[in-house]
């Protein structure tokens, strides 16, 4: 059954359109003077809030030493298999690191695969991998989009450490417990 809507005829003011134009101009003019919400990317960059999940990076301890021991747990947990690690042995001639025994020979994260889920950070037993505030990854080739070990440390930098696990181990070993 057809349903007829009774349309009200427009009033004179409405037919003039002027009040509506003024109302629209008011909104526009308000934004002329109100502070900007967009920014001139890439010259200007946003402040990244704490806890942001950006590009996964490898970090060093405050003494500039590699923290990752190439346990490959992140490689295992990574859902899209973006991480690829070649484990290696730390040679005995590094006095402050030899007792760690193991470290990555190569460490690649394919950023075309990474889904920024943060599971690698969550699983890492050494607190060596963090998704920090780097959010923009671009490149012209696929190879450029794979972060190798050097690049991962460059992106990661140094983070504060609460544990100094290996320093404690070393101190215990030097203290010894011999009879």
């Amino acid at each position, binding site marked *: 059954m057809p349903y007829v809507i009774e349309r009200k005829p427009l009033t004179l003011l409405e037919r003039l359109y002027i009040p509506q134009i003024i109302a629209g101009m008011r909104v526009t003019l308000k934004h002329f003077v109100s502070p900007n919400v967009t920014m001139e990317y890439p010259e200007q960059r946003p402040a990244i809030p704490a806890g942001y999940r950006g590009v996964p990076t490898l970090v060093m301890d405050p003494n500039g030493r590699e923290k990752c*021991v*190439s*346990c*490959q*747990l992140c*490689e*295992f947990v990574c859902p899209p298999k973006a991480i690829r690690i070649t*484990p*290696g*042995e730390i040679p005995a001639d590094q006095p402050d690191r030899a*007792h*760690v*025994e*193991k470290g990555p020979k190569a460490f690649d994260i394919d950023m075309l695969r990474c889904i920024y889920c943060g599971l690698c950070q969550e699983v890492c*037993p*050494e607190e060596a991998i963090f998704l920090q505030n780097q959010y923009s990854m671009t490149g012209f080739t696929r190879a450029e989009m794979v972060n190798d070990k050097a690049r991962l440390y460059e992106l990661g930098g140094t983070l504060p450490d609460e544990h100094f696990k290996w320093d404690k*181990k070393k101190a*215990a*070993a030097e*203290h*010894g*417990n*011999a*009879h």
Partner: protein
Amino acid sequence: MIAPPKPDLVTVNVDGKDIAVPKGTNMIEAARLASVEVPHYCYHPKLTVAGNCRMCLVEMGLPAVDPATKTPIMDPATGKQKINWMPRPTIACATNASPGLHIRTNTPAVVDCRNSVTEFLLINHPLDCPICDQAGECKLQEHSTAYGRGYSRFVEQKNVKPKRTQLGPRVTLDDERCILCSRCVRFSKEVAKDDVLGFIDRGSYSTLTCYPGRKLENNYSLNTVDICPVGALTSTDFRFKMRVWFLKQTPSIDTESSVGANTEVWSREGSIYRITPRQNDAVNDTWMADSGRILYKQVKAADRLVEYSIEGTAALPAVALAKAGGLLRAGSVAIVGSGRSSVEEQFLTRKLAEYLKAPVTLVSRVGPGDKILVSADRNPNVRGALVTGLVSSLPAQQLTELAAAIDAGQVKSVLSIGEDLTAAGLTAAQLAKVPVVYLGTQRNATSESAQVVIPTLTVFEKAGTFVNQQFRLQKFAKAVPGPAGVADDLATLAQLITAAGGPTLASDLGALWAIIAAEVKPLATVTYANLTASGLLLDGTPWAALPFVEGETLHFKPASPVAASA
């Protein structure tokens, strides 16, 4: 009530369930038969019982009997014989099943024992799972998940012990991780018969070491790595190479000698990382020799053949095969088969030889047998050649007959299946006289001088069967893909037969086994698919009179005294 057991069985009760187990079974195995796991570290089914880790504590009870009258005391509440439970827990590994034995593995007291043993074991443990090669297959890790408290109450300083001691050329020891179970000590003494390991010092200072001036360097040293329940003993070759949870296991056979030890090949994405023994109680128990564990290195060795070639220049597979076929068609071919080929390949070689009416010889390889798992016959499959009818007598180490035939001009071409003819006694001058078609995996003097070279696959890259010294037919599976462009060996041989003008034969295992079963009497009932993991013992009596070179090994006694002297 369950039926009275057979005389060699005794009925025991595990967690309220009656089960008949063979006499002499210990409580761990009896519980295993009842599908109940009793956690343990020091007990190993193939070693003597030491009873030192105390992880296997269970509650044990025996049916009550009146001491005076020896009549069973009945429990009026249940109407069954009363059970006298021992007031203290017992170690399950060192207690054998006796009739009516009752075991409880799930009471609070037992769980308490396990929790406490775990806490004590972890007191001095370095907890370095992230860098430990055993992580993922570590008993301490598994049982700590089940029975650990998750945090440590130990506030004193942990013991510090040496972290990377080289016990021998292939074994690295991390003393901090050792839980002093003595499995490795017992293995060295009882199985390897090389009693080099032992503990020094007392209490928590106890440390595993080699006898002064000795090394753990016998050919079975890596078995200690396999049986170490924790990551204390690690393989120097595999150390820090890959975490075990990435590795795929493929059942295979050790090809270093005619023992045919069952193995497990661990690979990831087409690369092999290690080889470990696979349990077969009729062949190798749970052991294998160190020498067999490095055989995977031939897969990516520098001398690996990956290209078809004619007179040293690379050629397309079809062209190389056609050229080889042409040489074979010319007649007067001599075939040098191999005791390292699988049964299926030997069968196809026989087909080729029959078609060409060519004589077949094999090359024997003999080394010293160690009476454990390396026999004197260093070919894995000489008996396969006998069973398939490729040859009817045992091969010699030198190809003297072939050499004489070449000198006499009776041979127009030689087909060698993986055998280095120079090493087998042919001189360069003799090889220069005849064109050689060489099928093989590795480059050698023969492949250098051969007219046609056809690359083949290693045992890790194909599937098939071998017949070991007991005449046990055992199968191996393909662990990794072969080099790009190299065809499967069965396909290569089938194509070679076709190229030589012969019939077209099946080249996949299923179809080929139908033909083998039809033509080879001893294998009449076998198909590749129904061959079990433990293998099939064939009847070796037709060949019993042959003077096999093997002496005694772990599960093999030579039949004739002639062989025993070798």
